[in-house]
């Protein structure tokens, strides 16, 4: 009993002494972010090709919602596999999948925006960092319901009417790729890549991509395309140089 009282006194007095101390005692360590030294950083660029026959444009039927037919003002074609006349593949997601372990990158403060426009998601493919603001806009005169079907992150869906304010969400964990649909318009699809680092890119219409400011080292670079699946390759990046990583998807024979 006496022991307990003594202990109590010790605790109490400790409490008192802490109170009189003006220095905050419970400060969490600020996360130590990895800073890239530009002098030792390099880049990766490349081109992505599709070797199979160029797919024929498929008309999308938007009759489910006449307002979409009008909003789109013209014919709408499927965009799940877009190949140009030279076999270049746009809309593929390229990212560093291994080699950055243990590095903690700061979350960008700029939001990544997806717009529901012409009854499409724009862009169809996007990447963002964990915790980065994902801003959702509806520019259409119709209601949309964005539904990221996440498996690692939380799945959610939310309706946005014409003229509604943009809304924001975040994805907390890395996830490749989150398929997004519109619950109201069955043809609307988008894909989101969430990474805990900034080294990702979406190929342009000419199949090109570039990943800049990457610390020198050896990495696995991966590519994902919604119809064609994934590929990867090893690549070594030296300081102040550009390494090339080209990918080719074979067409179905």
């Amino acid at each position, binding site marked *: 009993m006496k022991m307990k009282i003594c202990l109590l006194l010790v605790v109490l007095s400790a409490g008192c002494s802490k109170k009189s101390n003006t220095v905050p005692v419970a400060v969490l360590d600020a996360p130590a972010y990895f800073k890239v030294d530009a002098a030792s950083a390099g880049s990766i660029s490349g081109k992505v090709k599709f070797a199979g026959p160029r797919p024929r444009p498929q008309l999308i039927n938007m009759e489910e919602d006449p307002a979409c037919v009008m909003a789109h003002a013209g014919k709408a074609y499927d965009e799940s596999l877009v190949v140009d006349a030279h076999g270049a593949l746009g809309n593929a997601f390229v990212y560093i999948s291994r080699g950055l372990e243990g590095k903690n990158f700061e979350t960008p403060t700029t939001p990544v925006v997806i717009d529901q426009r012409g009854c499409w998601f724009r862009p169809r493919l996007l990447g963002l960092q964990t915790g980065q603001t994902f801003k959702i806009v509806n520019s259409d005169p119709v209601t949309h*319901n964005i539904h990221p079907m996440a498996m690692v992150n939380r*799945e959610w*869906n939310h309706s946005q009417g*014409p003229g509604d304010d943009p*809304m924001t969400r975040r994805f907390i964990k890395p996830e490749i790729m989150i398929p997004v649909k519109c619950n109201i318009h069955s043809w609307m699809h988008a894909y989101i890549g969430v990474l805990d680092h900034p080294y990702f890119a979406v190929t342009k219409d000419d199949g090109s991509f570039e990943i800049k400011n990457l610390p020198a080292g050896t990495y696995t670079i991966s590519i994902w395309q919604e119809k064609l699946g994934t590929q990867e390759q090893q690549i070594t990046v030296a300081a102040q140089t550009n390494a090339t990583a080209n990918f080719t998807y074979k067409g179905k024979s």
Partner: protein
Amino acid sequence: MFFRPWVVSMTMAAVLLIVCDGCRSHVQDKPIGQSVSIPIPLGLPPLPLPRDNPPTADAVALGRALFYDKHLSQDDSLSCSSCHNPQTYFTDGQRLSKGLGGLSLRNAPTVMNAAYLPFQFWDGRALTLEEQAASPIADPLEMNQPHNVSVKKIAANGEYKAMFVETFGSDDVTIGRIENALASFERTLLSGNSAFDRYQYGGDQTALTISQARGLAVFLDPNKGNCASCHTVRPHDALFTDGKFHNTGEGVGDLDQFSDIGRYHETKVKTDTGAFKTPTLRNVAHTAPYMHDGRLKTLKEVVDFYAGGGNSNLYLDPEMKKIHLNGTDREDLVAFMQSLTGEMPPNVGPPGKK
């Protein structure tokens, strides 16, 4: 010193009587005279009537006068009808109603057929029309007038003297009498005999268009619209509401937060967070905008909202399951809801008018 038990109890009873006497006025709030028979339009069930407030002809007439009387607001600018306007089926057509304290927090619901509902207000904070009636009068956001002031202003108006005598047997004005008279008037605000009612309950197969009839089928089908799981349709009548509270996700913000917690405000039950009373769909084509926050402007937007499964959140109602509606289904549902416009009963406009 000992008291005999009966002396004690008698004394206590006397004290209680005095205490009760102090808090209750002698004035009877129950109308005198015979209850009138309120005609029930096709498609509506028998009307429940409270024993302590039978709708007499005088009470209904008094309630009607009070309903349109702007003296029930602080600066004599608003009456009940300001937000419950007969021209828009006893709503105000605004997203949020404008009261004396600025914009109210919710969309004004219709008063029509409210007499059937087990709960009043979007969050059900009143159980009866009587309980509901005086609340917006005193609400700082709405008519912003304490009850004692309302009583004084009504008592000072000579035109009411005879009406109170005829209705209650004396010219005393109390807030209870005002509530009872307003509730009696509101019990006459019944709307039915719509094209849907003539089709469904009146045997008139031509009352609905082909699209509307298809829409009705989608509305009732649990595997299609599943609308009737909350907007009730029964074999002999339809209120198009279950009178209960559901979370559709409307009003949920980032991180699953509800700026308006709805039914939770009353029950403190977590799963009631963001749940609001199912509104009736009768006359819905004329009561835009929609939802408790008035966010949806058109019936198409409402159908699209449900076609999308509402908004996900922790307390989403299980009936908000994913529904499958093709373009025709959606158009048909909108057409069907346009068949729910019913008749307006007589003698419900401002006194002196039809």
